[in-house]
């Protein structure tokens, strides 16, 4: 394995900007790594070799001319979740129904990455339309967890997180509707951030559940995530729900956190996130992490968020409801898959046949659930009630943040489960989102940072840190402080303990 692919984004940027390495060399090294291991892990749906090399050369040309780097990450490669549109590059959302669709426009996130000189290597695998917690719902086959080939990398953004753990990319973009950045981060031993809702533009993010979806950074270190967050974040007039305020100073917070001093920081442990359904090793890892925070000077308090137990059921009414409407546009009339066309078929026949053939089982399940939940006569009992729960969850957060600056919990109740283990048990699959969903419902910010390996199965565990809306900087301060202390204690970054991957032809 090339050493270049083991470097962090911050290190790569420094070497590129000081011309120790060219962006093209860095990009080529990652493309080579993808070529070697992606048959094994299957994190990419599309690798844009030519586009990536061209973007890297453009950065090199500018730097060779003596111009200042376009951004702190100029020249650094990145893996983009296949749910964000890319002008001229296929975007499938992991679905057959969009197979072959080439968007005519860039998502705002995509555009900002390009403008910052970040090199987009390709599009990563995901659960179809981001619905799932294992990436097994991709129409194009599952992604394998680099820690254990037989296990899932989490989901829906399993491709993005696994590409980091497989050293195919130093940076990735995910989207988090109920945990799709954080939970894959936790089970692959990488960092994932769900920014405050409205903190990163959703323009060009193919909507699953509009009021919950949020794009965010994935990386191997907290600092790298912060650098990426600053590139993609901030107000966008194309997204009405985008927050019209400056981003909090997140990179500064990550650097400050690296001093590993958390004195004066109040950390709240959410008492509802423990007990039945929590793997013992995960629980022990979490408790050890809390001890580390305490040792860094943080004041640890217990907080109760009594309505969090209703968050998951409410989430599984709101997301299918919005999904049933958002996915109505996939009807074969204008783009994507079209089947069932014959001489006498009506438009409705073609719509029906295409949706039958183009959507997978989980997507259909959610469309049906949501259609039911929004139906007249049921709306108040389901969608209406779920919205009330959402308000109560938000109030729980407000009360908790009166007592604590950040809240902590395990990111997900278990380590990575085996491929196939939960596919026939949707409720078990949905429980993977138990701890992550409240932050989506309330719209506040949360991060998952690796907290070591579970002592019973040797698989990665994540520590979730949650902050109030607009206080994303707190995640980075606490996350970076914890990361430094943990790396110090374990003799280096956890992610380097990923086993060697089987390479193609090897």
């Amino acid at each position, binding site marked *: 394995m090339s050493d270049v692919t083991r470097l962090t984004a911050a290190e790569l940027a420094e070497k590129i900007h000081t011309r120790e390495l060219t962006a093209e060399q860095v990009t080529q090294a990652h493309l080579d790594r993808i070529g070697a291991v992606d048959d094994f892990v299957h994190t990419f749906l599309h690798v844009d070799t030519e586009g990536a090399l061209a973007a890297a050369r453009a950065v090199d040309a500018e730097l060779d001319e003596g111009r200042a780097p376009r951004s702190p990450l100029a020249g650094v490669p990145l893996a983009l979740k296949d749910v964000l549109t890319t002008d001229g590059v296929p975007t499938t959302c992991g679905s057959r129904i969009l197979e072959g669709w080439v968007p*005519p426009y860039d998502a705002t996130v995509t555009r900002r990455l390009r403008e910052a000189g970040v090199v987009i290597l390709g599009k990563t695998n995901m659960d179809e339309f981001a619905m799932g917690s294992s990436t097994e719902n991709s129409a194009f086959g599952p992604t394998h967890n680099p820690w254990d080939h037989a296990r899932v990398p989490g989901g829906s953004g399993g491709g993005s997180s696994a590409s980091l753990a497989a050293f195919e990319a130093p940076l990735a973009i995910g989207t988090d509707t109920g945990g799709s950045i954080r939970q894959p981060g936790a089970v692959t031993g990488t960092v994932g951030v769900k920014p405050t809702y409205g903190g990163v533009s959703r323009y060009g993010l193919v909507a699953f559940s509009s009021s919950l979806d949020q794009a965010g950074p994935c990386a191997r270190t907290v600092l790298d995530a912060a650098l990426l967050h600053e590139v993609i974040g901030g107000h966008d007039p194309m997204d009405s729900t985008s927050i019209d305020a400056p981003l909090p100073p997140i990179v500064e917070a990550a650097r400050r956190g690296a001093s590993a001093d958390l004195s004066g920081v109040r950390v709240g442990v959410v008492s509802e996130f423990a007990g039945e359904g929590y793997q013992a090793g995960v629980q022990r890892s979490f408790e050890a992490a809390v001890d580390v925070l305490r040792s860094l000077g943080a004041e640890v308090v217990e907080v109760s968020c009594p309505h969090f137990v209703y968050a998951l059921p409410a989430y599984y009414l709101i997301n299918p*409801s919005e999904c049933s409407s958002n996915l109505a*546009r996939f009807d074969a009339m*204008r783009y994507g898959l079209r089947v069932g066309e014959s001489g006498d078929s009506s438009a409705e026949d073609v719509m029906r046949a295409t949706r039958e053939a183009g959507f997978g089982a989980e997507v259909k399940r959610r469309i049906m659930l949501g259609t039911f939940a*929004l139906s*007249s006569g049921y709306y108040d009992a389901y969608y209406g009630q779920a919205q009330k729960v959402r308000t109560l969850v938000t109030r729980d957060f407000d009360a908790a943040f009166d007592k604590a600056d950040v809240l902590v919990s395990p990111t997900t109740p278990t380590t990575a489960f085996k491929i196939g283990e939960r596919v026939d048990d949707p409720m078990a699959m949905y429980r993977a989102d138990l701890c992550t969903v409240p932050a989506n419902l309330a719209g506040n910010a949360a991060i998952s940072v690796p907290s070591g390996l579970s002592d019973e199965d040797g698989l990665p565990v994540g520590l979730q840190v949650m902050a109030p809306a607009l206080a994303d900087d707190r995640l980075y301060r606490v996350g970076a402080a914890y990361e430094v202390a943990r790396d110090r204690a374990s003799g280096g970054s956890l992610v380097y303990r990923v086993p060697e991957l089987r390479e193609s032809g090897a």
Partner: protein
Amino acid sequence: MTTMVETMDYDEVVERFDPVLGLEVHVELSTATKMFCGCATTFGAEPNTQVCPTCLGLPGSLPVMNGAAVESAIRIGLALNCQIAPWCRFARKNYFYPDMPKNFQTSQYDEPIAFDGWMDLELPDGETVRVGIERAHMEEDTGKSLHVGGATGRIHGASHSLLDYNRAGVPLIEIVTKPIEGVGARAPEVARAYVTALRDLLRALDVSDVRMDQGSLRCDANVSLRERGVSEFGTRTETKNVNSLRSVERAVRYEMTRQAAVLAGGGEVVQETRHFHEADGSTSPGRVKETAEDYRYFPEPDLVPIAPSEEWIERLRGTLPEKPAERRKRIQQDWQLSDLELRDLLNAGAVEVIASTVDAGATPDEARSWWVSYLAQQANTRGVELAELPISPAQVARVIALVNSGELTNSLAKQVVDGVLAGEGDPDDVVAARGLAVVSDDSALNAAVDEALAAQPDVADKIRGGKVQAAGAIVGAVMKATNNQADAKRVRELILERCS
């Protein structure tokens, strides 16, 4: 295809039944851009040239509200004496149709921007009727389907359909009346008067082209009957897209006579949507839906709520035009009209178009003479209202200005108006395309005069002998030779110069 349907004599209908009306009017706003994106809204552009990811509903695209459309909605609400919601949202109306790119329409549902208002209408005999306004809400238009290969132009029986998304996302305001009761035999007339008054109001607000022929004003008429003396409403039908003022009146009248026959025969009126047939004034059932449509409305999560401040609302209130009644009083004074003259102009639907023509620079007399004579004839021939003629007051004012500046003669001006009516563009376009400018080049005219004098030497001699009135024949010949494009007065002067 219309089958014979029994109807009841109208006098009998109103003797036995009491009609209840509900009118839903959709108005396309004349904002420069669409409701939720920056695409242009020009009518008649090449299909699918005014589109973008958002109005095509491409995956990932998002709506952004058009502030000008919200202002128009508030102004309409204020002009209709409505309350303006201090906080309201858009909702998604979910149903599948190929001309709707997202398969949901972004609309307002239980939180309209304006509600609970009224409008006073004056009927042709001077009686005033107050119509309650239930609500006015914002929504986006759909694309347009052209169904090819069928007999009716409807989707049923068509071999394929063509879709134009230029209209998709154009801002619409839907204005819904409260039930209009107690107008009895005058119901059809009231329906027409309401749509007319609404159109005039919207035109005065300058928020829409209000062209029923182009679909920028569309009316759906709900009609039900109940036995006289009964208070519960009967079952209603909704006749869709009635696209002229006259049709509104005819559709209501027809539905009354049809429903009365059904009820009198012991039958039940089916709650359904119906289509209006211009040719014979009848209505026929739309496609029968097997199940009631469930639109699964929910608040649009991609948009933020609208919370107009008091200050903003009051500023917009300050931009409202005069109230129609006050406006009429002022017009009567300014134009020095008798009550009878004003009533005639009102009944001819001429007041607002004349006023707009005056606003565009013509004098009241000039504007009146065009609208009550030549244009009235054209409207009559076409069977439409003056305001429905495909010529705008501004275009008429331009023709008048061209006459006043000597660039057109009266007879050329009529040809220019014909050109505008035929869809050849603005007056200046017609003048250029048809080559209708007055021939004012004296050398060209002198040549024509010389030719005419040479062709009629006896007349020429009479003129030279002092019989000036004989010049008329030569003038006529010159006008004919110049295709009526010469100024007759100037021709006469030239003839007399030549013969002096």
